């Protein structure tokens, strides 16, 4: 193994063990490496933003290709920093509201493309069209879930009548089942991350895995 790889593997192993040491108790070793990771991520983000975005799309055309007008967006972006001056803070607000407006407009435009197919696919057939009994059952469960959960979220009127109260109650139970599934999935995710680290420690560091 090359020296660089060896150093990288040992560094990775020490960092992993340091972070995992919090499982026993909070300690300085863990705290130090936590700060190292945060600093690394922030510094790396800055470097990549410069290399992949700013250098090629802004600095290179501005400084090497004579596109001097690209200084304008940079000056406009600098208005953000006027937020630190009470007298000039209004300038940053102009920029912020412009971006808010832009974001809201884009969200509105994109909503139909995102939610449209969701709405149309909510209408599922319950008979005919050569559906198998399993598909019919599946669609029925979907329809009951949709109606009951939507009923639970009707807050415009009191849910005291049986016709509304019972579906709303079923809706709440179905939501709980969905949250349970999500939590189970989260447990799986956390274990996956831990298993990955154990695979690294046992495999790449200690060479115990095939």
């Amino acid at each position, binding site marked *: 193994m090359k020296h660089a790889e060896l150093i990288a593997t040992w560094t990775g192993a020490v960092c992993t063990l340091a972070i995992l040491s919090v*499982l*026993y108790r909070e300690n300085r070793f863990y705290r130090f490496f936590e700060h190292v*990771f945060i600093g690394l*991520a922030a510094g*790396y*983000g800055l470097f*990549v*933003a410069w*290399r*992949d*975005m700013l250098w*090629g*799309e802004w600095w290179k055309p501005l400084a090497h290709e004579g596109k001097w007008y690209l200084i304008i967006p940079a000056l406009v972006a600098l208005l953000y920093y006027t937020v630190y001056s009470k007298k000039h803070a209004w300038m940053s607000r102009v920029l912020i509201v412009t971006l808010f407006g832009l*974001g809201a407009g*884009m969200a509105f*435009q*994109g*909503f139909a*493309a*995102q939610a449209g*197919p*969701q709405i*149309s*696919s909510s209408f599922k057939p319950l008979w005919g069209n050569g559906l198998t009994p399993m598909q019919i059952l599946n669609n029925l469960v979907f329809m009951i879930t949709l109606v009951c959960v939507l009923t639970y979220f009707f807050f415009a009127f009191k849910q005291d009548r049986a016709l509304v109260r019972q579906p709303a109650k079923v809706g709440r139970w179905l939501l709980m089942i*969905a949250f349970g*599934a*999500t939590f189970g*999935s*989260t*447990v*799986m*995710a956390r*274990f*996956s*991350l*831990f*298993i*990955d*680290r*154990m*695979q690294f420690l*046992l495999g790449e560091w200690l060479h*115990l*895995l*095939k």
Partner: protein
Amino acid sequence: MLEWTIRLQTIDRRIIYGLVIGLIVLALLWDFPLPQAVSPEAQSLYETIESLPKNKLVVIAADWGAATRGECAPLTAAVVTHLFRNKRPFAIIGFAAQGPELTTAIVQKQAKEFGAKYGKDWCNWGYKVSIDSTLLSLAESIRRTIPQDVEGTKLDDVPLMKRVKGIDDVGLLVEFTGSGTLEAFLRRLPRSVKIAQGCTAVVGPEQYPYIDSGQLCGLLVGMKGAAEYEHLLGIRAQGTAAMRPQSLAHLLIIVLIILGNLGMYAAAKQGRDLKRKGEAAT
């Protein structure tokens, strides 16, 4: 006996951690076989790549970082193996700073095995900020949005990009992510571009409605998704190896939940007994 059962509610967390670590290490060292079922969502992604026209570009959106490497790396590796095996050209783009770099490391490792070359079989568009506006612009013009690759080569000079004129030449976009970034792709890309996703198990349940509506053509969820895809490819890599400890750890959690509930019922029973005795004494 009752006192002992009540104590099951308050097992020291370090004992639980010790059990989990011991079980995971054991399952990693002991290579026992486990059956692997393939979900229809994983099968669908596999078939989409198999049936993709040769002239279409695949885009890999690497929207993940070191924090979700455990799940996203094996997912990415499995799909990249499929793309290299079928000689499908692909480009990497990322809306998370670390994504393209971590994906490049996976791709470079596999490129050696498959004899693939940068520029001819794959290229890296790099990290881009602001997902919505970048995708909006990408749908209009790839070259205006990404004038050069991560190495500073103009896109026109990258061999595999010569036949890619616009977004219509992109056949499939596969996003790997640990967060809810999928909606931006659904909002901004035309329906001609098929979209699939490999995501962490945390965000997995939220993505299934998009499979039902046909907005996603495939979905791989967490380490299990990676294992399913490796099964389809006929390989045994990180995802498959992780299924043994994953399954045992889940069994342990189920046992602990049962024990915790037994403790809770025992405590409730003791409370009722004490109340009854108190009432009888008065």
